[in-house]
Every structure is written in C-alpha cells, then in structure tokens.
C-alpha cells in the first residue's frame, strides 16, 4: 500500500489537451482510492481557453454546454464548488488524497468537508500572498480582501478520498472570461498591476505543502495503471460530447473495468440465483476486463465498502424492480432472466443495448 501520510507525489505529466488532464486527474483519484497511488498534486496548463463546470453548476454559464466561440465548456467529475475559466494564464491543479491524513492538521471549529477544502486552499493562498497580494481563503475559493474571486475549486469524493480540482487566475484574459462566466473574477496580475511568472507562485505553494504537512514531494510520473486508466477515461468519458453536453458516461468499476452490477433480493430468489449463475458463466473468460458485483436489496453501500454502487440502484430499490442487470451504470435487463446470448452481447458491447430504466419506471407507475 503506497497510500500513507508521508508519501506525496508531485505528478510529472504534460499534455496540451485539457481533456486528458481531466482524465489523468480522475485516474489518480481512483488509483488513490484503490490504494495504488500516493497522495498526489498535479499541476497542469491549457493553451486553449476552457470553462470547467460540473453537473450542478451549469447555471453559472451564460451558454449551453458545448463551445462558446473559442472557449470550450468541459464537464469535470466535481460535485460542488464554482465554475472555472482556464486559459494559458492560469495554474490548474488537481489534488488526490486521503482526507483522513488532514485530520491532525485541522484547527478551529470543524466543519465537515469545508474545513478540509479551506485547509488545502490555505497553501495556495500563501503562494499568492508571497507575491504581495492580500487574499483570504474560503471553502470554495480564494478571494481578494475586497471579495473578488482569484482561485476556485471543485471537489469530488469517493469515501474518504478527495479530489480537489482547482485553478488560480494568474495572468488570465479576463475579457474573454467575462463573456461566458456570470461571476466576477479577477487575476493576480490585474490586482498587483504587473505580469507574474506562474513559477514564482508554484514554488511557494509547493514549499507551503511540504512545510505544513511535514513531508517532501517526490517528482514522479503516473504509474502504468494510472496511465491505462486515464486513457480509458479519456476515450469513454472526457473525449466524448455525451459527457460534456449531457453528463452521460459509462459508470465503470473503480479501475476502469466494465462494471456488471446485479441487483438481487436478499436472500436471492430462484430467479435471482439463475441470473447470478448466468452472469458468472458469461463473464468467466473475461474476468480481467469485467467486474461483477452482486448488490443485495436493502443491505446498503456497506455490503461492498470498497466498490462504487451505481446510483441507479437507489431508483430500482424505490421502484422495487428486482432482479436487474446494470452494465456500466445502465439498466440493461430487469425483472426477467435474459437470453444468455443477449446478456453476453450486452456485457461485451454495452452500447448496443439501450438503458431500459425509463420504460421500467413507466410500467411501474402505470401499475401503481
């Protein structure tokens, strides 16, 4: 297990494609959860202007997801925080870490999640203060004393593992930014009246991390598993319009395998057992590429603490649709046992089979 409080990596990975940077960020996050990667900070840049939004923050953008002029709107896996406008003048960062390691360092009144964000943002705020600008850190960003936003974050969580994706506006083209973002944002160079070398701030941030967390960064590239996972996430999620425009992407297993989730009665009925048996037969030869998880009704997420539960199981539970086969987050078969050939085909080629959740819910509502 490489994941401990003293083991920190400064990820060395360069790409000109911001979508790949998002894929790498999610890959290091997932691998940290799996115990394969150390706590990591990854700084990245984009030459093309982009807006980073998350599914709950679309209202802040004065356009539908897609492209506004030359500015591309990209969806992150964040679950809170603020939209971020990034161009060549920004420093973007992703921190993937076990939040438990922060507990000994947190001071003052503890506010779940917010205390962690604020604590980590303090390092970035110190970096900005180092060039002579007075700023204050809040849970979702860093602001000038007058209240103008100068850095933003978007957090995401898997259990105790935090992915904090953020940006600092250093020499950002604010004119461009204001065309698409409804919030007032400023930049370090605008506030202090001169252009700043991003490296100057970066070094200070790194020093703050090492000093306050009492550790030294190891400069390393991604491990092979992270690279493979990042490529998969890039191809199936971040390089697709479906994700950025509709927020739809395959719900893969933690390490990127095809996730076959079976939702069954507790204990399983004869039909549920037949289904489990069939899935086992079908996946027997492809166990490296497929992860099969049996979720028992009413047993909660704790029945598989290290696995990701497809959110659709909550919907199936409320609509009492049992049993069901969920492949990469979509309901492919439910209530009846499918033909074995259909099940095999759906596991090998999930996109060929539609998500039948909508029609199942319609049937259920008609019955009730």
């Amino acid at each position, binding site marked *: 297990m490489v994941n401990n409080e003293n083991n920190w990596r400064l990820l060395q990975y360069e790409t000109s494609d911001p979508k790949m940077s998002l894929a790498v960020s999610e890959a290091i996050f997932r691998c940290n959860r799996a115990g394969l990667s150390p706590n990591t900070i990854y700084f990245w840049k984009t030459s093309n202007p982009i807006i980073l939004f998350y599914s709950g923050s679309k209202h802040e953008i004065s356009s539908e997801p897609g492209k506004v002029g030359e500015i591309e709107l990209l969806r992150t896996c964040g679950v809170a925080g603020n939209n971020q406008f990034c161009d060549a003048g920004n420093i973007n960062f992703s921190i993937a870490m076990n939040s438990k390691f922060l507990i000994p360092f947190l001071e003052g009144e503890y506010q779940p999640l917010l205390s962690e964000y604020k604590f980590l943002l303090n390092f970035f705020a110190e970096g900005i203060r180092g060039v002579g600008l007075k700023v204050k850190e809040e849970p979702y960003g860093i602001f000038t004393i007058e209240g103008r936003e100068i850095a933003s974050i978007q957090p995401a969580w898997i259990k105790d593992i935090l992915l904090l994706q953020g940006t600092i506006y250093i020499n950002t083209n604010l004119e461009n930014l204001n065309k698409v973002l409804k919030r007032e944002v400023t930049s370090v160079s605008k506030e202090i009246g001169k252009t700043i070398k991003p490296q100057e701030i970066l070094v200070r941030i790194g020093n703050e991390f090492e000093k306050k967390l009492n550790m030294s960064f190891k400069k390393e590239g991604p491990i092979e598993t992270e690279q493979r996972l990042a490529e998969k996430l890039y191809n199936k999620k971040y390089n697709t319009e479906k994700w950025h425009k509709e927020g739809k992407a395959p719900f893969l297993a933690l390490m990127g395998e095809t996730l076959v989730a079976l939702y069954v009665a*507790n*204990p*399983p009925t004869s039909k549920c057992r037949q289904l489990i048996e069939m899935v086992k037969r079908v996946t027997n030869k492809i166990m490296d590429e497929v992860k099969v998880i049996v979720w028992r009704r009413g*047993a909660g997420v704790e029945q598989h603490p290290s696995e990701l539960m497809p959110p659709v199981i909550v919907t199936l539970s409320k609509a*009492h649709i049992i049993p069901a086969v969920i492949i990469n987050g979509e309901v492919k078969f439910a209530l009846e046992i499918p033909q074995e050939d259909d099940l095999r085909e759906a596991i090998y080629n999930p996109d060929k089979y539609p998500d039948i959740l909508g029609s199942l819910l319609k049937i259920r509502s008609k019955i009730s």
Partner: protein
Amino acid sequence: MGNDNQNDFKKTEVLSESITIDGFEEEYFCIICGKPLLVTSVESICSYCGKSEKGDYICVDGHYICEECRVASGEEIIRKTCEASQEKDPLQIAILLMKHPAILMHGPENHLITAYSILTALRNIGNLSIGKREFERVANRLKRASQGICGSWGVCGCAIAVGAVTSIITGANYLSDRERSLALEISSKILGEIARLGGPRCCKASTFIAIKLAVEFFNHKLGIPIFISKDPRPCIFSKFNIECLKRRCPNYGE
C-alpha cells in the same frame, strides 16, 4: 410474534451454511434477526405473509421469507403482512415491517405502517369489528399524506394515520362531536410530541411516538385493551440513519 417465527429450525433439514453459485459464494443474513441464513429445502412458513412453501434459506431462529415477499413493494409487504398477522402488539408489527428492505428509512410507507400496525393489533384483540374495508379506508385517506408533509404542511403523516384510525373506529366525521374531538386530540398529542423531539425528521421515531401514544389513548379514552410488550429502545434503525438525532431521541441507545 404472530407470523414472525412459526418455523421450528430444529426440525428443518439444513443443507449447507452458505450457497455457492459457480464460484460466487455469498453468505446471507436474516433481515429479521441478523443471524446467518442456512440453506434448506423443507416446507417453511413466511414470517411476513404466512404463506407455506418449499423453503430455500432459513435462519436459526426459524425466520423464512417467501420469494414473493422478498421482491414485494413497501405497500404490498405492509398489506400482506397485516392481513396474515396474529400479533396483538402494534409496535412489534411495525418493527417487523420496518426491517423489510422495501421499507425505506424515511418516507410515506411509515405512515401506512403506523395505521396498519394499529388496525391489525385492534383486529387481533377482537373487541372491534375490523375487516378489509377499514384497512382500505385508512390506506385511501393516507394517500394524501405525501413524503415530507411534516416539513411542508406542519402535520406528520404518522399523526394523520392515528387520527384516521381513530375516526374510522369511532365513526367520526366533520359533523361529529366527541368522536371528532377524540381524533383531533390524539393527532395533536402526537404532533406535539414529534415537534418536541426536533429535527431532522426521523420517520421511525415518529412511528414509535404515534403508536405508543395511540396505545395509551385507546386504553384510557376508549377502554380498548391494546398494549405494547416492549420498548423500541435501543433503536435498531439508528445505524442506518445518517441524520439520526442520537442522544436527542428517547429511543437511541448504544
């Protein structure tokens, strides 16, 4: 419990302690008592609906759940269980129902549980004539008590459930005198107690309050010999409730 454990585990022929399906080995636990389930093939009686069928999994305490009940919806399991139950303690009926995976921690099914548990106990005590019609009437009335009604209307569905049961058994309507007052009195008592407990809402705590106060009320005001055999404390649902009031709730216990 009436139909809780009618199976004598000692008489069952246990085949194995867990089931292996081509390498998927799973251990299952009884949803009623939490003890491990053993594989069997003998005729078993469902602890919910009372149906007898060739069993597959049974626990050492004799709990068995038929295939239909395992996939039932909340409303189905409440109706079927109460139809079959011989239990006279409404709280035990409610707790058995709450253990079923179709019953969510919070939600309007808990209103129906409150009403049906009390009506079932009243029917099984035998002093009142309670049949299918009374159950249907209370279920229809409770359809209007939607999810979150406590916060949005200031009236908890569990209090409405007891009010509706009181109205049905006394024959109250809006023109009645004492009968109407009785329904209002018990509902307001329950609401007062739920309000004193504070929030966020806990549908289990509200159900417990409603049943306990209803039992007291029916005893004292209507002379019905309904009883509760044991306290719900320590609440077994606390660990599943992320918003549990913990020490602020009288049912909480480590």
